[in-house]
C-alpha cells in the first residue's frame, strides 16, 4: 500500500474552498436563470454576477466595470494579446518574455504566423526579466508588452511596476498574466501602470473554467468570441452564474495578508528539509518569490523516474499544461538549466489546505527516493547531472 496522497501541486490547481463550493451549490440549485434574461429570475442571476464582479474587482483593486469574465486565464491571455494585435490597427509588434505561460507563448506564436513581429526578452539566471531589456525591445511599432506577474514554475515575481512605468512612458499597453499571483501577491490594478491583467479562479481555491480579464479604461480590444451582448460585447456566451459566483467567493475569501506568510513558512520549511538532500538546488531568485512555489533540481536523478518514485506526492515537473510532454521546461531552460537538469527538477507548490505534517512527510519521501535513484545511476556519465 502506498502512503496517503499528499497534494503539493497548488500551482497547477487548488481544491475548492468549502465556502466557495457552498456558494456555488447554493447558486446552482436556486438561481438557474440566464443572467441576460430580463425577467425576474434573470435579474436575480444578473445581480449575483454583478456582486461577484465587485468581489473580484475589490481583491485586485480595480473598478468592477473593468472586470470582464472569461473561461480562465488562458482565454484572458489570448483575448489580451489577440484583442490588441488582431485589432486591425497599426503597430504590429509584441514584446514578451521567454518564460511566459504557454497560453501567452503559443498565442504569440500564432500571432507571428499572422504577421505580427514578436520580441522575446530573456530572463536572468534567477528567473527575472530585466525591465531595461523590455525597454530596449520596445520600438515604434510596439503595441503591447506582456509580462507575467508570478511565474508558474519558479514562483519568481517580475517587476511589473518598473515594466509598467516604462510602458506608460513609451506609450505602449502593458498586459500582466496574474493567474498565479492574484490573491497571493498584492496587486492594486487601479493604481498600477497595468492596462490588461489576466485572472483565474482555480488557483485560488475557486472553480476551474472561469477567469477574467481586467481592461483599463481607454484600452481598445477586439473581441475574440463573437455573438451576444454579454460582457459589453467583449466576450459573448451565456454567463455561467455558478462559476462566476464561485470566482467571486474565492476572490473575496482570499486574504493574502494572512495567507502569504503562512504559505511562505510552509515553503521555507520544505526547502530547509530538501536542501539537506546532497546537490539539491533552488531554482529562481530567493528574493522576489511568491509564497507558494518551490522549484528544486536534484542533479543526477532522471525526472520521470523520480516522479514515478514519488507518485504518492502530487507534485509536478513543470506546468500541468505540458505535463505529459517529454520536452524540458522552457522556463527552467530560460534560467539556463541544461535539459537533464531541467528534467531533474520538481515543482512543489503549497496552498490553503497544506499542513506541516504533509511538508515533513513529503520532504522525508524525497530524502529517501533521491539517493535510492542515484544508486541506480551511480556510474552515470557527467552529462546526466550537469
Amino acid at each position, binding site marked *: 500500500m502506498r502512503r496517503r496522497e499528499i497534494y503539493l501541486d497548488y500551482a497547477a490547481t487548488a481544491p475548492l474552498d468549502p465556502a466557495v463550493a457552498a456558494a456555488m451549490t447554493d447558486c446552482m440549485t436556486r438561481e438557474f436563470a440566464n443572467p441576460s434574461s430580463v425577467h425576474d429570475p434573470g435579474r436575480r442571476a444578473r445581480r449575483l454576477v454583478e456582486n461577484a464582479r465587485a468581489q473580484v474587482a475589490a481583491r485586485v483593486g480595480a473598478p468592477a466595470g473593468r472586470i470582464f469574465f472569461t473561461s480562465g486565464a488562458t482565454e484572458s491571455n489570448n483575448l489580451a494579446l489577440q484583442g490588441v494585435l488582431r485589432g486591425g490597427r497599426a503597430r504590429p509588434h509584441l514584446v514578451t518574455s521567454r518564460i511566459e505561460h504557454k497560453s501567452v507563448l503559443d498565442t504569440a506564436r500564432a500571432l507571428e504566423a499572422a504577421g505580427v513581429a514578436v520580441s522575446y526578452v530573456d530572463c536572468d539566471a534567477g528567473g527575472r526579466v530585466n525591465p531595461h531589456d523590455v525597454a530596449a525591445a520596445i520600438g515604434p511599432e510596439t503595441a503591447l508588452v506582456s509580462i507575467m506577474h508570478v511565474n508558474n514554475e519558479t514562483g519568481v515575481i517580475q517587476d511589473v511596476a518598473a515594466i509598467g512605468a516604462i510602458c506608460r512612458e513609451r506609450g505602449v499597453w502593458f498586459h500582466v498574466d496574474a493567474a498565479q499571483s492574484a490573491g497571493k501577491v498584492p496587486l492594486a490594478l487601479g493604481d498600477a501602470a497595468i492596462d490588461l491583467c489576466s485572472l483565474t479562479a482555480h488557483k485560488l481555491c475557486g472553480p476551474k473554467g472561469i477567469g477574467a480579464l481586467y481592461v483599463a479604461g481607454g484600452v481598445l480590444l477586439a473581441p475574440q468570441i463573437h455573438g451576444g451582448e454579454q460582457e459589453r460585447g467583449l466576450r459573448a456566451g451565456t454567463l455561467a452564474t455558478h462559476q462566476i459566483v464561485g470566482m467571486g467567493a474565492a476572490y473575496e475569501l482570499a486574504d493574502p495578508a494572512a495567507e502569504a506568510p503562512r504559505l511562505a513558512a510552509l515553503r521555507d520549511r520544505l526547502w530547509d528539509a530538501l536542501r539537506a538532500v546532497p546537490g539539491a538546488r533552488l531554482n529562481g531568485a530567493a528574493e522576489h518569490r511568491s509564497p507558494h512555489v518551490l522549484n528544486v533540481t536534484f542533479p*543526477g536523478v*532522471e525526472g*520521470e*523516474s523520480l516522479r*514515478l*518514485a514519488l507518485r504518492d506526492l502530487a507534485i509536478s515537473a513543470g506546468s500541468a499544461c505540458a505535463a*505529459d510532454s*517529454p520536452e524540458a521546461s522552457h522556463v527552467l531552460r530560460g534560467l539556463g538549466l541544461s*535539459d*537533464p537538469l531541467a*528534467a531533474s527538477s520538481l515543482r512543489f507548490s503549497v496552498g490553503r489546505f497544506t499542513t506541516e505534517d504533509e511538508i515533513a512527510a513529503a520532504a522525508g519521501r524525497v530524502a529517501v527516493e533521491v539517493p535510492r535513484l542515484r*544508486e*541506480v*545511476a*551511480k*556510474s*552515470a*556519465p557527467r*552529462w*546526466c547531472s550537469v
Partner: protein
Amino acid sequence: MEYSSEVVRRCDAPRRVGELPRATPGLSSGEAEDRSLQVWVRFELQVQDGVIQTVRFEAFGCPHTVAAADLTAERLEGQPVNAARRVDAKELMRELEVPIEKLGKLLKIEDAAAACVSGTATRT
C-alpha cells in the same frame, strides 16, 4: 505517462542494480547512451564457460528504461553469452507495455548488452 504494473514493480525494487566486484573472473561490461534522449545504460556480465552467470545494471533513464534493463539483466542470467547480442527492444516493449515513443531509449539497452560481448566497451 502510464506504466504497466510490471514497470512500476521493477522501478520500485530493481533486483540487479549495481556493479560486480572488479576482481570478478569473466567480468565484461558494456554501456550505451543517447544524450539527446537523456538515456544511459550499462550492463556487467560475469561469464563462465560461455554462460552468463550474473548480471548487474545501472541506468539513467525513464522508468521504462530502468524496468527494461532490470528485466534484461534477469533474463540474461543462465543464457549463453551470445544472448547478450540478441536482446530485443521490441520484445521488451511488448512485455512491459512500453509506448512506442520510448523505442529509441530501449534500443540503448540492446546496444549496452551487445557492447558487453563486442569487447569494445570498458568501464568508464
